[in-house]
């Protein structure tokens, strides 16, 4: 593991570069294939509405995968992530249009730990609502 960020260069409150990730219906079909999760709530509007959802929703694991990119783009080597956890609190609703939805991710160093590790807390939102809770990573820095 060779993170490009040094432990000595960050403080509690250091912000990671925020990013926005677009997600359309086509994104969800591609993710369904890659992940093997073919639950129809992620691609079939009729089915999603029948089970009480407002529309097709993104896979929770897709949102989780996007959110950690703010950390792995910061460290360079993705292996710097030694722990990562989230709570799925609200769905990312993906309308059937050209724009789809946007997942907005920001993060900051919340604690400096032993052995050059830090805890990064992520804020993950879509359409103005927080979609992941307790979204945290423990990251090994250089």
């Amino acid at each position: 593991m060779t993170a490009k960020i040094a432990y000595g260069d960050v403080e509690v409150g250091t912000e990671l570069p925020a990013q926005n990730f677009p997600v359309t219906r086509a994104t969800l079909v591609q993710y369904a294939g890659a992940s093997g999760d073919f639950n129809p709530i992620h691609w079939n509007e009729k089915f999603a509405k029948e089970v009480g959802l407002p529309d097709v929703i993104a896979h929770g694991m897709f949102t989780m995968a996007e959110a950690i990119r703010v950390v792995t783009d910061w460290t360079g080597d993705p292996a710097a992530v030694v722990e990562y956890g989230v709570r799925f609190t609200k769905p990312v609703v993906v309308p059937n249009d050209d724009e789809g939805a946007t997942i907005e991710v920001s993060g900051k160093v919340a604690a400096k730990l032993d052995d050059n590790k830090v805890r990064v807390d992520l804020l993950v939102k879509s359409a103005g609502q927080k979609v992941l809770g307790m979204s945290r990573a423990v990251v090994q820095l250089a």
Partner: protein
Amino acid sequence: MALDQSFVGRSYPPTEPYEVGREKIREFAEAVGDTNPAYTDPEAAKAFGHPDVIAPPTFVFSITFKAAGQVVQDPQLGLDYSRVVHGDQKFAYTRPVCAGDRLTVTSTIEAVKTMAGNDILDVRGEVHDEAGEHVVTAWTKLVARGLDAEEGQA
């Protein structure tokens, strides 16, 4: 229906090995739009000190969730899978998943609860490589929603 508390602590036999392929990692990285070269370029991965391309942090969920299927579909447990949504997910890594790994998963039921009409199941999946070394542990909280509940998302 309340779940059977006697299932807490129960472990299931290790799965057959899943062989991690370079192109499967590439497919996953492309699906999440992640261009980190550690996922697709063996030389870039080696420059980071890895033996081959590595998988994005959440890639292993596909493997652990499939393994958890033997738990959630255990008819003796009595979980109503048609009402199950994904509550929480956590990973703790000893090392990244790497192309060429042959991974087995051992699933254990950590907790069984009923809260506010929801059945809640916590499953831990321990992932080991062919040498028996630990790679990653995945904790998955599944919530079978009661008729009035609206938590979680799938």
